[in-house]
């Protein structure tokens, strides 16, 4: 039995042999392949005739609940399964004449707090009340749909009870499901089952929700059980591990471009509550134990840090982090909280923040979220510099910079034009049940039902744009090595015949990521101008419009269309990821990168700015290695960072995995803001990751 790490460090063993076997089966695609083999249920044209979209959706959900295969895995401690393959592809798994009917919903963390603490029965009451309230209005249909979907959930639930009944090995599963998720969870075991069962139904219907603050959801229940001697920590770990293992039921392997691991099911740990109290509890540490032992990357974990975070927790995070895989990331919650409050969220709401399943900050269970990453470098090249074929010229750097910012702001305006009103692309009742506001307003998730409706523009290629602008400032205006027109001509010719100047531009200036004030201040300035652009448009639409910084690997597609850059890059080179430096331009190490990044006023981008940090395995060896990671996290918090994802990968291990994928099926690596199983990336992605890990320090 083998759970590989990205750098050869051995993982500890705490779970039972049976649970480890179950984990290996699940990671080894046993359930994913089964799921994939059955894409969805079929509806006939006759059944669908004369139905509204919402009615079609309800019928589909009901049939899914009635007909989806019930799967009970050997030895499973919790039950429920999302057994239809189309759900893996972000679709409602229902077809008519082989055609899919509806897309599904992702990038949200639903309200598991109500599920665990009040039970789905409470939501049923709300739905009934909503139907009464909106009877005879155009919102009645949604309220009826809510009741229909809840009824389907009951059907699905009943089928599992039947399947588990009178099977002694599943007695606990059965008894727990007699109470949850419809009633509130009375103990830890019920709590885990309640979350998993609700999660599995959401997923069965095609949705990809995040989990949110698992230690907040389950901490009190566990504490109570431990106090009353009903459960030991080892038993609790075993139970909780099954949530992680069951969460691997969609792993199918194969070649999926950006990987098959991620369905945005992020877990957030630690941090403070609305009273400023530390929420860290035994569940926090159990999650770290499980991730450390199994390396399961399907639930990326983000830990909320602040200046008072316990040293013990930091060390534990460091120990798990250094196994690699990019499974653990951190927020500096002080900046996140200030950012949300500055943006207008009440403090008590901000305190609950989790994310959309990846890392973009949102208030869980209350937020309709979407984002749009765009290539800021493309705006510079296409709009401001007319893709290098025009006769653009600028007399000063300020003139050049202002022209760019004007183009950037114009772009934001066009972006918002598409989002002035709520235009639901699909019925989405199932997720709407678990989003506060929907039943109250009688509106679905996509109709603006949730308390907060967010559309977040994400500036991508930030470091590249900053470096480009800075190189022009130095080459043309400060050092006068070349005129603006000449430089544009040279770039249009992809530096051909100007290798000396190319080398000069590449080597002689310190770019973003080297803790060099002049260029870092330009980055901070650009980020502020971007945030100003977003703020100016906020309030024009039903969506709030907070900015963020990300690329999520899109730099791979973007770079193909990019022309040569002033900072010494030829056309088409893969450039910076998220808020990280342009690859190869950072020469001063991880602390310098963090310092550069933190010079930006990161609270101006409330949905977040992700910093990827790559570290060589040699740096994190032994006790010094733990100290190094702890120091990076501490510094990141002190300096005012937002989100950081350190990754420790040995490029040699990755090359071995490329040669011998069978032995590295479970090896997880960070891609760009998320992680994926390495062998499920296509060759282009694999090579990109290997080269990044070779150039990293």
């Amino acid at each position, binding site marked *: 039995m083998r759970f590989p790490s990205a750098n050869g460090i051995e993982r500890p063993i705490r779970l039972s042999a049976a649970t480890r076997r179950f984990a290996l089966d699940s990671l080894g695609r046993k359930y994913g392949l089964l799921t994939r083999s059955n894409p969805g249920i079929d509806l006939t044209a006759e059944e669908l005739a004369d139905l509204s979209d919402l009615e079609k959706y309800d019928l589909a959900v009901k049939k899914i609940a009635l007909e989806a295969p019930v799967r009970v895995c050997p030895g499973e401690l919790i039950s429920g399964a999302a057994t239809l393959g189309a759900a893996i592809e972000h679709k409602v798994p229902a077809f008519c004449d082989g055609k899919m009917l509806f897309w599904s919903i992702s990038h949200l963390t639903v309200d598991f707090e109500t599920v665990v603490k009040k039970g789905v029965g409470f939501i049923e009451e709300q739905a009934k009340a909503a139907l009464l309230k909106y009877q005879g209005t155009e919102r009645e249909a949604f309220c009826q749909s809510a009741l229909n979907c809840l009824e389907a959930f009951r059907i699905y639930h009943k089928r599992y009870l039947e399947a588990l009944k009178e099977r002694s090995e599943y007695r606990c599963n059965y008894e727990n499901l007699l109470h949850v998720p419809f009633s509130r969870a009375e103990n830890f075991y019920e709590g885990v089952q309640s979350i998993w069962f609700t999660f599995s139904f959401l997923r069965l219907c095609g949705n990809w929700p995040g989990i949110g603050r698992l230690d907040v959801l389950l901490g009190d229940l566990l504490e109570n059980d431990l106090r009353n001697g009903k459960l030991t920590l080892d038993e609790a770990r075993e139970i909780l591990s099954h949530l992680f293992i069951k969460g691997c039921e969609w792993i199918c392997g194969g070649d999926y471009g950006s990987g098959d691991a991620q369905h945005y099911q992020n877990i957030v740990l630690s941090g403070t509550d609305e009273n400023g109290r530390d929420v860290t509890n035994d569940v926090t540490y159990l999650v770290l134990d499980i991730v450390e032992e199994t390396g399961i990357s399907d639930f990326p974990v983000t830990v909320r840090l602040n200046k008072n975070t316990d040293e013990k927790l930091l060390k534990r995070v460091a120990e798990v982090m250094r196994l690699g895989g990019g499974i653990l990331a951190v927020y500096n919650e002080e900046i996140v909280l200030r950012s949300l409050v500055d943006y207008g969220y009440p403090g008590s709401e901000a305190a609950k923040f989790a994310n959309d399943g990846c890392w973009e900050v949102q208030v869980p269970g209350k937020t309709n979220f979407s984002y749009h990453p765009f290539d800021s470098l493309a705006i510079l090249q296409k709009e401001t510099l007319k893709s290098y074929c025009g006769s653009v010229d600028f007399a000063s750097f300020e003139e050049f910079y202002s022209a760019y910012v004007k183009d950037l702001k114009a772009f934001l305006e066009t972006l918002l034009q598409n989002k002035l009103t709520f235009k639901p692309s699909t019925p989405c009742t199932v997720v709407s049940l678990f989003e506060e506001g929907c039943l109250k307003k009688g509106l679905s998730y996509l109709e603006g039902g949730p308390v907060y409706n967010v559309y977040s523009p994400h500036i991508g290629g930030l470091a590249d744009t900053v470096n480009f602008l800075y190189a022009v400032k130095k080459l043309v205006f400060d050092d006068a090595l070349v005129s603006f027109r000449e430089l544009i001509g040279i770039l249009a010719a992809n530096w051909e015949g100007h*290798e*000396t*100047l*190319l*080398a*000069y531009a590449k*080597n*002689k200036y310190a770019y973003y990521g080297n*803790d060099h004030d002049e260029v870092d201040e330009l980055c901070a300035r650009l980020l502020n101008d971007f945030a100003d652009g977003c703020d100016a448009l906020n309030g024009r639409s039903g969506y709030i419009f907070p900015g963020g910084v990300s690329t999520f690997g899109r730099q791979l597609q973007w770079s193909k269309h990019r022309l040569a850059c002033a900072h010494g890059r030829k056309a088409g080179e893969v450039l910076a990821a998220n808020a990280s430096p342009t690859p190869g331009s950072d020469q*001063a*190490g*991880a*602390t*310098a990168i963090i*310092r550069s990044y933190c010079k930006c006023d990161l609270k101006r981008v409330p949905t977040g700015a992700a910093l990827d940090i790559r570290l060589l395995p040699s*740096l994190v060896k032994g006790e*010094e*290695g733990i*100290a*190094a990671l*702890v*120091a*990076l996290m*501490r*510094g990141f918090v*002190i*300096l005012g960072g937002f989100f950081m994802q350190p990754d420790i990968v040995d490029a040699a291990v990755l090359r071995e995995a490329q040669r011998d994928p069978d032995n590295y099926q479970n090896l997880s690596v960070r891609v760009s803001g998320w992680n994926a199983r390495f062998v499920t990336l296509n060759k282009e992605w694999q090579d990109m990751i290997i080269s990044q890990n070779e150039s990293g320090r």
Partner: protein
Amino acid sequence: MKADAKAKLVVSEIQRFCMHDGPGVRTTVFLKGCPLRCLWCHNPETQDARPELLYYAKKCLGCLECLECENGVHFFSEGIHHIDKSKCTVCSKCAANCPASALEICGKLMTVEEICEAAEKDLAFYGKEGGITLSGGEPLFQPASLELLSFCKERGLKTAVDTCGYFSEELLAPAVKSTDVFLWDIKDTDDARHLKYTGASNKRILENLRKADALGAKIKLRFILVNGVNSEERHYEECAKIYRSLRGALKPEVIPYHAFGGVKKEFLLESANGRSEWIPEEGQIAKFKQYLGI
């Protein structure tokens, strides 16, 4: 007496986020100048105290920008870049012009204050333990290093000194006063070999070590292990004796020889002198550690 913030030192490099140069996260300042000439030196560019020209042949584009040199240091024949270092006045013009950074001046004059400020950039990462480490070369070879150490202490930085132990005795007391921890290299306990391989006797080194310990210094010994040179049990035993005799000894380290320093010789326009047969085997390292009880 306050430290002289304006005193100057020749710095070859400042490296941030070092995890193996003292407790916690360190910013390591490499100072030029060393009284020893160890054949296995891994930082040969820091031996000479004066700034000097380095050349990275692999980076050279052959663009001829360096031909602007007025002293005729650079010339090209049949596409090959030749450098006559004897003519170099270290004016740094060629290095500034070189677009590929193939030419570089190793050795920058910096004030005590500037160096300290460079180290302070990473204050947020130091925690309780981390700080500045002076290395080199022999940090105490440049007397102004004492000013730097006491200036750093005044500013509240933790200090470490990575020393070969060979320096004049009067530096000892002030150095101990301003240094939180010494990383003290022991090359060889056999004095004849020490003279042969480092160019100097080990007497002063061991004497300084004893005195530093008496003055209350915290010392982490670092034993250099070179296969075929000092890889013998008598030496291990002597090292263990030294370790046990110190009052303020922290857990020592064995530093196995590696050949990277040899490659750097080429950057100095000398021939590479790395010797793979000097690299010790795992068993030898383990044996040495056994003697030391670590």
